[in-house]
């Protein structure tokens, strides 16, 4: 187990370093910088601006300085929003995105699992077919479309829920619904397939043969074993929540990380883009790291093979 952990943490740190390096040099490769715009700035001012942000030093020195900063959670100053550091922006915006993500995560987990298990139990009956049809429809609709339609229907037409902004629980309902539809549909398919797979295994037949009641077979043998593929879906789900939040936060005017990401791209605030990318990647890699460990705990064969 220890060697497995070591190996995984090595890959984790290597990936993070690769991300930081690639992103850093890509951002530096963009021609021009945010100080060069329509208004001509005197040369001296430009020079002192470069000096202030450390942009006058050689590229490699800047890179090392950036790496050193990351260790202290210092992602540098924002180039557009004066007096604000990227770390401050993240600290302010992340809790919002986190709450939205957490609600979506549990809602889609709930719907995905229950619909998936239900349609596996009702295999090829009308319930299963309906769920299958619904999930293929949901998978075919872009989430920004779904979010806009929900907003139009429930807020503009029916005035049941707030149109936008992020103030009370009622404000979070529509964004959460819009964001969770797609992962719920995916997960329902995934759970159904893996459950049917488990149900056709020999040990289930043995359990039937020895007269175990159906309820017990499902609860004791099937559910636990059909969770493994769901675990594999957690990282893609977190990635989806992240990118989905770009769109949903924009439609519902939620001041989260996604909004900042889009805003910083549009204003060419390179240090904020860089900081947010590094932050996002760190979170995702961390999730992947935890999932890998969970896998090893649930499936002992894996850690023996990988170690």
């Amino acid at each position, binding site marked *: 187990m220890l060697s497995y952990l070591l190996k995984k943490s090595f*890959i984790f740190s*290597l*990936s993070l370093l*690769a*991300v930081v390096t*690639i*992103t850093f040099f*890509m*951002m530096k*490769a*963009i021609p021009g910088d945010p100080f060069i715009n329509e208004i001509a700035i005197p040369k001296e001012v430009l020079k002192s601006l470069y000096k202030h942000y450390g942009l006058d030093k050689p590229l490699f020195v800047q890179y090392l300085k950036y790496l050193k900063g990351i260790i202290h959670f210092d992602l540098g100053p924002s180039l557009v929003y004066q007096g604000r550091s990227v770390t401050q922006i993240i600290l302010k915006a992340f809790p919002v995105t986190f709450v939205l993500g957490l609600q979506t995560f549990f809602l889609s987990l709930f719907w995905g699992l229950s619909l998936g298990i239900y349609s596996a139990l009702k295999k090829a009956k009308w319930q299963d077919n309906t769920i299958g049809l619904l999930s*293929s*429809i949901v*998978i*075919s*609709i*872009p989430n*920004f*479309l779904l979010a*806009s339609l929900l907003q*139009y229907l429930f807020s*503009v037409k029916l005035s049941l829920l707030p149109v936008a902004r992020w103030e009370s629980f009622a404000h979070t309902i529509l964004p959460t619904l819009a964001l969770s539809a797609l992962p719920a549909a995916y997960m329902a398919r995934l759970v159904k*397939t893996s459950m*049917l*797979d488990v149900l*056709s295994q020999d040990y289930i037949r043995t359990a039937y043969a020895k007269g175990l009641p159906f309820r017990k077979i499902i609860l004791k043998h099937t559910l636990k074993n059909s969770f493994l593929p769901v675990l594999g879906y957690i990282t893609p789900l977190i*990635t989806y929540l*992240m*990118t989905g939040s*770009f*769109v949903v936060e*924009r439609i519902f005017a939620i001041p989260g990380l996604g909004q900042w*990401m*889009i805003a910083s*791209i*549009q204003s*060419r605030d390179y240090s904020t*883009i860089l900081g947010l*990318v590094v932050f*996002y*990647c760190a979170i*995702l*890699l961390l999730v*992947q790291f935890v999932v890998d460990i969970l896998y090893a705990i649930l499936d002992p064969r894996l850690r023996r093979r990988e170690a």
Partner: protein
Amino acid sequence: MNDLYDPLDKKQLLDVIEETHHKSAWQRFVSSQTGMIGLILLSILLFFTLFGPYLTSFTHLDINLSNINKRPGMTHWFGTDDLGRDLFTRLWMGARISLFVGIGAAFIDLVVGVLYGSLSALFGRKVDEIMMRFSDVLYAVPHILMMILFITVFGNGLFSIMLALTLAGWINMARIVRSKLLEVKERDFVQAALVFGSSKRRIILKHLIPNSVGIIITTVTYSIPSAIFTESFLSFLGLGLHPPAASWGILISEGIDALQYYPWRLVFPAIILSLTIYAFNAIGDALRDAFDPQRRHAL
């Protein structure tokens, strides 16, 4: 006794076996309901993509300010937008862009992924290890961030967006091809062919390629809709193509703004986009089941 080991006979026999395998995969596809629905839908969509823009007397850029936001009717079948442009024409011109980007991206994924995956699988050992670690590290970077960075650096032209879409797509293909090849390599019939003295070339051409074609076609079919999706997503965020180009993402995001008063501006592009995605996914599902009957029996 000699006839029994006649190389020609053996070759013919193998060909017959492989042919029946493919025939039945095709037959299984044709007999599946979802697959046929998807195929018919896609043919209709392709027909309009090719000929739709010529069915009207407008081009997708004709501005007519005395004719803005017209309801769908006899002259403008899908209505007009806020600059009086004919939506029917714009929609099918948009289909050209979206399908071109989607299919182009899927094709690049295919070429790069198959090359990378099969090289990794065929060389094996150290080369395989290094190639797979490299793609693992790349895969760990969130795809959408890579695309956004790429587009920020290289601009949002048609080809830059198409390349951005393939940045991560090929890794998936490479992984699938590699694991399929590794699996087939260990199967009994390949071992048997080795024992019979088949050359490496023959094994690759006659066993490895035919046995992995199914999963490759299926993966390509799935990657087209996901590329179309991502393109529309980027357009919605303002990071994709810019108006007056008419990709579906642009039409839908313009339609969302007009939803309250001119709903048809959203309804038509949204339905067509969703139908296209549905068609590709349905064909993908049917292909997957057709090439892998065991899976279908399990379901």
